[in-house]
Each structure stands twice: as C-alpha cells, then as structure tokens.
C-alpha cells in the first residue's frame, strides 16, 4: 500500500517538477524530506526514480511547446523542438522526443544490466584527464556548431564562463564580481541566467520572425504508433545518444545534463558535416532527449551498487538511509534493484502517456495570439523565478538579477546564446579539471 501511494505521489511530483521551470529533483526531494525520513527505504528509491523519470517527459514538452527549458539539460530540446513547434511540426517533435526518450530508458536498463560486473572498471578510467578531454571536446564542438560565427561564440562562451565564476567562494576564500553585494555571494542563479539570456532572446527572436496565432494540433496514440515505426530511421542517433547518456548518468562530475549536451553537439556536428543541418532538426532533438532519459536511470546505479551518490538528490537519499542506520551495501541494493527497475519502466510508460495527455490539454490555447502566449510564459517565469528564490529568502534578489541581465538578453536576440549558457554551466568543472591536471602532471 505504501509503495503504491509513494509511486502515485512520485508521478505527481515528477509532473510538477517537469512543468514548472527551476523546480528540479532537489527541490522536490527537499520538500519531501520529512516524509521520506519515515518511509521504507525501498520506497524512498522508488519515489525518486518515479519522480525523475516522469519529470524528463514533461520537461521536454514544456521546452518544445513554450520554448522554456525546465532545466539546463533541456536547452538543446528547446533549440530544436521549439523551432519545429513554430514551424507547425510540434506534434511530431513531441512524439519523436517522447518515443526516443522511452526507447532510451529501455536501452539504459539493458546497458546497466549488462554492464553491472564491469562498473568498477569504468570508474578506473574516469580520471581528470578524461573528464577534461570530454568537456573540452563538447565545448569546441559547441562553439563550432553554433549559429554565430566562431569568434562571437567563443566570446559568448567566455562571457558565460566569467558570469559562472561570480560569487563568494568559501573554497577559495575570495569573492569575484560580487561588488560587495550580498545577493551575488551565491553567484548568479541559473534560473535568472536561463530566463534573461536564453529564453528572452529565443522567444523575442521567434516572435519577431513569425507572428500569428498559437496552433498546436495535439498528439494521438496512433501518432505515437506511427512515430515508433518511423523511429528505425533514427536508430544510429538513438543508440549513440542513449549510450552517451547512459555513461553520463553514472559518472560523477559528468552528469546526464552534460552528456545530453554532448550527445546533442555530437549529433549536430555530424549533421553540419553532412550539410543537412537546419535548426529544427529531428536527429538532434532525439539525440538530446534520449541521452537525457537514459541518464536518469543510470545515475541511480552508483548509488544503488557502489554507495556513491552522484547528484544532490541522491546525496539526500543516501543521508536518509544512513541516518536511519539502514544498510547501504551491495547486498541490500542488489535485492532492491529488480523492484526499482520495474517501477522505473512502469513510471516511464506512465510518463509517456501522461505527457501526451498534458500536451493535448494545451490545445485550449489554440487561436490565441502568440504574443499573448509568450507574455503569459514570461509572467509565469517571473513568478517561478521569485518563488524559487523565495524558498531561500532571496526571491527579490533573483528577480533583480534577472531584470539586470534582461537588456543583455534582448540585445542578443539575433544571436545564438547557447555558448553563453554553457560557458556559464561548464566553466567551473572545466577550470576545476584543468587545475587538477596541472598539479598532477606538472
């Protein structure tokens, strides 16, 4: 009974986490923390896996339909998917990304079952050098495949990197770009950056290029079935991206967010090389979405089998288990694995169906002038921004930071600001890795 209830609450939580930008797994886990403390340990894991898998389906839909990435890992989905949506191919975009995500989830399960005996050997090669090579490769490809010229993209990446370093670092014992303002001590919040320097330019650019009414034909189960049949054409993309996502999921420091970006830039690079890439590319959309979903499952493996939490949400789970003196060992985890696996597959299936229901509900907006829809999105984003910040008594601070950055976003509406966003996100791990390599090898 408890498991069934936890499962349902997990699905509802995943739905909210997916629809509302900035409400990620950590926020949900923090809210649910007191309740989780009282649950059976297997149910804690089931809650998390259910929430995370459903979250992924809804995140993708919000990015495609409204042009709002629910989290940084959905930025590529937004770039390709929202473009398709504005071209009237929204239904196809949603169905391809949903079916691709679902197949990737199954792929990840198979990969993990096969790879279990070799897990430790994978960690055995996960050195700072390899991490730097992967990060560096992603950055270089990202700059080369951006819509901007290389110089502008490099500049945007560097600006993003500088913004990413802002804040007071307790580790360094020093401040950077805080101007003695308390609101900047924690650095620039990711949601403020995403809203002002990514969503605003994209929505503005999209609106100025194509005005008119919001039009979304919805999705059908027949459509899903036909999409599944058409998926054969994308097999190579799907396998390559699912593999990257699966690896990213169980490697600390890489995360499936980064592997999703890596899968995307690799796919886009291949498409550019073949001279067939145009923004709104189904291959690229499937690549990032499938990498995302594959990683959602594989990220559980280090926690389940090695007792290594690799995300903040998992660290919370790990702490609950240990605080209650519950066994955090391979034997216990092995005994729970089958159950967790079952609920992951079931919740992924439910996520797939629910996401379809959710997008069809959005047809109520059909006929509305797109400018009203975008204004509505911006209003919701500002409220979300404030609410997210307010959870840490910093709602007004986050709003002020977003408003200060907004003019820059507006000025950049003709540019592809993806390099700036990823400069912001990747500068820290990149610099951190390079510093370690310098000490180790020089």
């Amino acid at each position, binding site marked *: 009974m408890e498991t069934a209830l936890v499962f349902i609450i997990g699905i509802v939580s995943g739905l909210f986490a997916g629809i509302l930008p900035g409400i990620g797994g*950590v926020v949900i*886990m*923090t809210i649910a923390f007191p309740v989780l403390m009282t649950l059976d340990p297997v149910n804690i894991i089931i809650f998390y896996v259910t929430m995370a898998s459903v979250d992924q389906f809804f995140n993708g839909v919000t990015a495609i339909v409204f042009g709002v990435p629910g989290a940084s890992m959905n930025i590529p989905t937004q770039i390709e998917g929202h473009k398709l949506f504005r071209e009237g191919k929204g239904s196809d975009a949603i169905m391809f990304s949903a079916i691709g995500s679902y197949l990737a989830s199954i792929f990840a399960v198979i990969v993990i079952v096969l790879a279990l005996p070799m897990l*430790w050997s994978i*960690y*055995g*090669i*996960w*050195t*700072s*050098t390899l*991490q730097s090579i992967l990060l560096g490769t992603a950055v270089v490809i990202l700059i080369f495949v951006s819509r901007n010229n290389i110089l502008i993209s490099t500049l945007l990446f560097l600006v993003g990197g500088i913004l990413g370093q802002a804040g*007071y670092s*307790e*580790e*360094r*014992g*020093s*401040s950077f770009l805080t101007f003695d303002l*308390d609101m900047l*001590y*924690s650095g620039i919040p990711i949601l403020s950056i995403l809203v002002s320097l990514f969503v605003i330019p994209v929505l503005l650019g999209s609106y100025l290029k194509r005005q008119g009414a919001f039009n979304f034909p919805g999705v059908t189960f027949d459509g899903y079935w036909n999409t599944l049949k058409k998926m054969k054409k994308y097999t190579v993309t799907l396998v390559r991206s699912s593999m990257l996502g699966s690896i990213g999921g169980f*490697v*600390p*420091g890489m995360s499936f967010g980064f592997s999703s970006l890596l899968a995307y830039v690799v796919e886009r690079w291949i498409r550019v090389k073949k001279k067939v890439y145009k923004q709104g590319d189904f291959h690229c959309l499937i690549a990032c979405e499938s990498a995302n979903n594959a990683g959602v499952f594989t990220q559980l493996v280090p926690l389940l089998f090695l*007792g*290594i*939490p*690799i995300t*903040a949400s*998992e*660290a*919370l789970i*790990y*702490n609950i288990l*240990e*605080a209650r*003196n519950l066994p955090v060992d391979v034997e216990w985890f092995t005994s729970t694995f089958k159950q967790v696996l079952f609920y992951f597959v079931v919740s992924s299936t439910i996520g797939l169906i629910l996401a379809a229901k959710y997008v069809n509900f959005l047809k109520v907006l059909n006929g509305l002038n797109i400018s009203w829809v975008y204004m509505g999105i911006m209003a919701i984003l500002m409220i979300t921004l404030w609410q997210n910040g307010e*959870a*840490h*008594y*910093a709602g007004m601070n986050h709003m002020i930071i977003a408003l200060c950055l907004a003019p820059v976003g507006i000025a950049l509406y003709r540019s592809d600001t993806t390099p700036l966003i990823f400069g912001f996100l990747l500068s820290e791990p990149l610099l*951190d*890795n390079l*510093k*370690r390599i310098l*000490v*180790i090898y020089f």
Partner: protein
Amino acid sequence: MRKILTVLSVILLMTTNVFAGTIDVIKHSRAGGLNDRMNEVIANALGEQFGEFITVENCAQAKKVLKATKNDTVTAWPTEREYGKQPCNLNDKYLISTFSNSPYHITYLAGNDQAADLNFLKTSKDITVGVWDSAFWSAPQTAFLQALNPNIKVVRYKSKPFRTALPSGEIQYKIVSFPGNDPVIAVLGENNYNAITGEELLPGHPFANMGYSFLLAGNVKFDVAKIYESDAWANKKDTTHTPWMSDLSRRQQLRAIKIMLIQIGNSAKK
C-alpha cells in the same frame, strides 16, 4: 520582599518562556553535505523544541538571518569561517560554543596493497594525495603531508570528482574528516581505527592533530550538551565527529579557536 518576589517571578517567567519556545535551525549549505547533516542532527536533537528550518543560499545570508530574526535560532557553523576578514565572519556574541570536531583521516582504496603499506606513503617518490577543495584547510594538510614525504603532490577536489578519485587511480590517498567505508591508514588525532596517529608519524608537527570542526552559532543561550545527550547525536552518520572542547568555558573555547585559526591561517599564507 514584594520586589524580590516580583523579580523572581519575572526571572521564572522568562526562563519558562525560553524553554517553552521553539528554536529554528538555519541551513546554509549544499543539501546532503556535512554541514547540512550537522544541522539536521541539531534539529532532531531539539525534538519538540525544534521550530523550523530556515534555508538560505549562503553563509552571508545566514549571518543576516541571525542578526535580524526575533525567533530563537541556532546553526552549525564551520570554524574556518571565523578566520581573518571574511563576509561570513560572525560577531563573537553569536558564537554559542564549540560544537564538534573530527580528526582528518588518511584513507586509501580497498584492495590497493601498495597504498596499504605505510612505507609507501612515507617514502614513495611518485605519490598523489587528494584533499577537499578548501584554501584554508588544504594548506596545513599540504604542510603536514610534505613534511612526512616531500614527494607528495596534493590535489584539491570538489565533492563529485572526489568520489571517484581513488578508484580512478589518479590519487593513492585522500584526506577526509569522515572516511566512510574506505580503509584508514593514518589519523591526525585519536581514533578507533587502530591507525597510526599524526603525532606518531611526525611528533611535534603543528598539524599532527588536526580536524574539521564546527561551532554552534545562534542568538539564544543554549547548552550544547542537550545535543550530545540526544539520540540524534548518538545515531548520526558522521560517527567520527565528537564533542569539541566541551570541558572548557566559552571564553576559553573562543580563545583556543582564535589561536588555532591563526596558526592554520598562517600556514596558508606561506
């Protein structure tokens, strides 16, 4: 007589209010991290006296809350924040007492027979040790390690890459306050692992006894013994954290902290 009774009544009333009121706990660091866990322990130890968690983004905001809130509030506060002039320095009046301390443990990967040999740590020419990414703590740790073996390279790690640093083989040892399941080869202080101590390795070295510690900060008079006597403290995950300087008066504690911080801070300047 009436005056005395009135004063006694007021005192009684005030004292009763203090004990009847709830105490909030500030959380000011990464969810799931050591600091976060310590604040969970405090909240659980308070039992029915616990009010609510006030979750803020950073230590500067936590400091603001402490100054502004009218509710009784406490929090676990990393000792190094009181060193020098930093945005998170607290006024001494907010430092209730010292709280907990865990000696630094030198650990290695289970199954690494080479690293399990103490002589390897002391004499190897090619050896790398991972430490937590802290400018403050890495300096004395480096000083100690390089006094033990000048060939040791010390690399600073953030939390996620630190978890796979040992299995990847790019480091042979790591220094942590809580060793988890990793085997321990030496401890910079007393320990239950039967491991060699820092003092035995390098007698008289200024950092032979060194650990990660917390103060108890807040705007209320609070007896830290209440936490030590609780089930939450007895059952906490970080078993190597023990009561810190609890036999000293508050004044002596603050003095000892200042001396310790200056000594460690000076090593960072070198």
